[in-house]
């Protein structure tokens, strides 16, 4: 089978169809032949029936009780030979009364013992000489108390000759038909599969650099068209993720370069300038600050890389979302206090999910941190815990400037920033939301964003209540 599987689809299809056709034809030929044979026998039997009656008509007994074959004898005898008829006549008590020459002393069956067993419908039998014959046996009454057993047989040779002629005709015709169909099938399959070849050739030429190319689809309705469409969809997805990756690489290298540039330039400048201990201390401190920034960035990237690799295992326990929100608030409320912001946790205090507390906490902390960061002085940050359908929900409402619609789709991308110029002043590497989204997604949930320009934003974190 594995050898069969290694051949091309085209030959496999052809072989499959040809075998199916051959099997069907064989079945058909078998049926036809046996029906034909049956008919031939039936014809022979009915003529045998007629002939035995003719023979019975010419049989008579002379007054002495001896069997005579009447005037038609010659004719009948002639007929016998002509048609290969073989005749035997027995008395009821098992005495042979007549046996034609054609039999050459062979008998058409055992010596009859009774009238009942003597009656036999047409049946085939083989004579000792090897000749196959069809024989019939009858009890013939000639006047009262006088009956003989008539056995008439006819050579089956012509019948079998006719049968084998028919079979050989079928035997020659069948393979020829199968071969013809196989060749045609091979050609047709080739034609039908040609687009696959074309697609394969095209796909081979599509590399990471030209993912915008698509496969040409001739017929969108057939299976190959669907395959091509699926392939094109995959290509589009690939193109998108490559684009994202490209942007990520560019952004990441930008983020890594900025602190490196700072370290280098601060170091070089202070080396070239004479200064006192405090000046150098300050320089080194400034360089270390940038090194710390790099460390945090690399840590976040590592967390994300590990998340991407799927190598983080969830340790689920029952987590009360209200408490979690309270905890995130307690951690960050000093930042809100510094900006005289009002930060509140509201809603259902009993909402709980089965989740990895540390990971989920990270998401909530990041969202609340953002809300505090982007809400103005004297602003309001509300965290509302509740349920909606099958999900547990935490909403983080801020009173910030809102997120313009064109940025909303991108804010969860790594390093994406609505306002690049402000980013460094506000702090953070632009990974907070991506990490939050990953943390929620891994629990089977999602983060939704609602924002009206000038009206603040709502980040809605949904977690399925049942795992």
């Amino acid at each position, binding site marked *: 089978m594995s050898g069969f599987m290694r051949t091309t689809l085209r030959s496999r299809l052809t072989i499959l169809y040809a075998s199916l056709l051959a099997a069907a034809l064989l079945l058909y030929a078998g049926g036809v032949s046996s029906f034909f044979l049956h008919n031939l026998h039936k014809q022979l039997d009915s003529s045998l029936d007629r002939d035995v009656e003719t023979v019975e008509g010419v049989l008579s007994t002379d007054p002495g009780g001896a069997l005579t074959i009447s005037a038609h004898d010659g004719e009948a005898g002639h007929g016998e030979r002509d048609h290969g008829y073989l005749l035997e006549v027995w008395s009821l008590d098992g005495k042979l009364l007549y046996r034609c020459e054609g039999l050459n002393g062979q008998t058409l069956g055992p010596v009859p013992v009774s009238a009942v067993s003597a009656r036999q419908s047409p049946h085939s039998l083989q004579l000792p000489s090897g000749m196959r014959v069809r024989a019939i046996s009858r009890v013939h009454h000639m006047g009262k108390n006088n009956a003989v057993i008539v056995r008439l047989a006819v050579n089956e040779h012509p019948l079998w000759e006719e049968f084998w002629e028919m079979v050989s005709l079928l035997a020659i015709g069948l393979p020829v038909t199968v071969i013809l169909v196989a060749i045609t099938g091979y050609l047709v399959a080739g034609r039908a599969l040609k687009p696959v070849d074309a697609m394969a050739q095209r796909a081979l030429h599509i590399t990471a650099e030209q993912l915008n190319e698509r496969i040409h689809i001739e017929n969108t309705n057939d299976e190959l068209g669907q395959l091509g469409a699926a392939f094109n969809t995959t290509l589009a997805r690939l193109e998108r993720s490559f684009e994202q990756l490209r942007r990520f690489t560019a952004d990441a290298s930008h983020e890594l370069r900025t602190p490196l540039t700072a370290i280098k330039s601060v170091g070089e400048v202070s080396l070239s300038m004479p200064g006192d201990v405090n000046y150098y201390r300050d320089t080194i401190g400034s360089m270390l600050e940038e090194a710390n920034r790099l460390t945090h960035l690399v840590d976040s990237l590592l967390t994300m890389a590990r998340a991407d690799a799927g190598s983080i295992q969830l340790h689920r326990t029952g987590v009360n979302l209200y408490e979690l929100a309270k905890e995130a608030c307690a951690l960050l409320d000093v930042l809100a206090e510094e900006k005289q912001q009002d930060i509140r946790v509201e809603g259902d205090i009993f909402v709980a999910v089965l989740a990895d507390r540390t990971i989920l906490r990270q998401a909530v902390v990041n969202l609340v941190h953002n809300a505090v960061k982007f809400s103005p002085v004297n602003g309001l940050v509300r965290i509302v815990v509740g349920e909606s359908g099958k999900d547990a929900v935490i909403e983080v409402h801020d009173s910030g400037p809102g997120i313009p619609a064109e940025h909303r789709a991108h804010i969860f991308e790594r390093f994406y920033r609505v306002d690049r110029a402000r980013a460094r002043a506000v*702090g953070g590497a632009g990974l907070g939301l991506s990490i939050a989204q990953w943390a929620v997604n891994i629990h089977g949930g999602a983060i939704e964003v609602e924002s009206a320009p000038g009206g603040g934003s709502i980040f809605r974190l949904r977690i399925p209540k049942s795992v």
Partner: protein
Amino acid sequence: MGYTEERGPKVQILLVEDETKVGNALSAGLQAEGYEIVWAQTGEEGFFHASSQSFDLILLDVMLPGRDGIEVLDTLRKHGNKTPVLLLTAKDAIEDRVLGLDTGADDYLVKPFAFAELSARIRALMRRNQQEPPASLTVGQLEIDPTRRSVTREGQRIELTAREFELLEYLARHHGRIVSRDMLARDVWREGSRATPLDNVIDVHIARLRKKIDDPFAIKLLHTVRGVGFTFSEDAS
């Protein structure tokens, strides 16, 4: 900072680290803290030193050419060597930590680490068999009573929030030494993940604490060491 053990001979540390720059910096830093350092640059050399001489502590880099840190540690433990080992590793996946601790390490530190943190970990390991720190802490005229959670300076009682008190207590316990933000995040805020950005939160708390314990007084105790962290000391430098 001139840290020395109060009595007895100097603490001897075997440092196994192949990176020349890191090795030099760590040796110099630890020597300045009063430790005696033997520096081995390969696993074989480290193993040779560890088995031929007695140390108080081994600082073992995991990624070493030839024989790696875990292998060296494993062989040492199999030979019955019970010297405390602090692993220095660039791998911080949970499995790596577990592997290290299972092999018999006493602690681990993920690179890049702040020198202040390394120094604190070493002191913690050295302290393990010694008595608990004194119940009451005094730095300058600032007194901290951990059991009553009260703070007084020059006789004046200072009201602190719970978090501020913990922060002050931690700084005071490490007085005279630098405490990094990472150490505070882990030990005071008990934040396991380095990905949670707590720097702003810590800075705000430090500012508030400073307002309460330093602003009304002439001598400042809480100092910021730019790029590294904070130090709690009467000595401004």
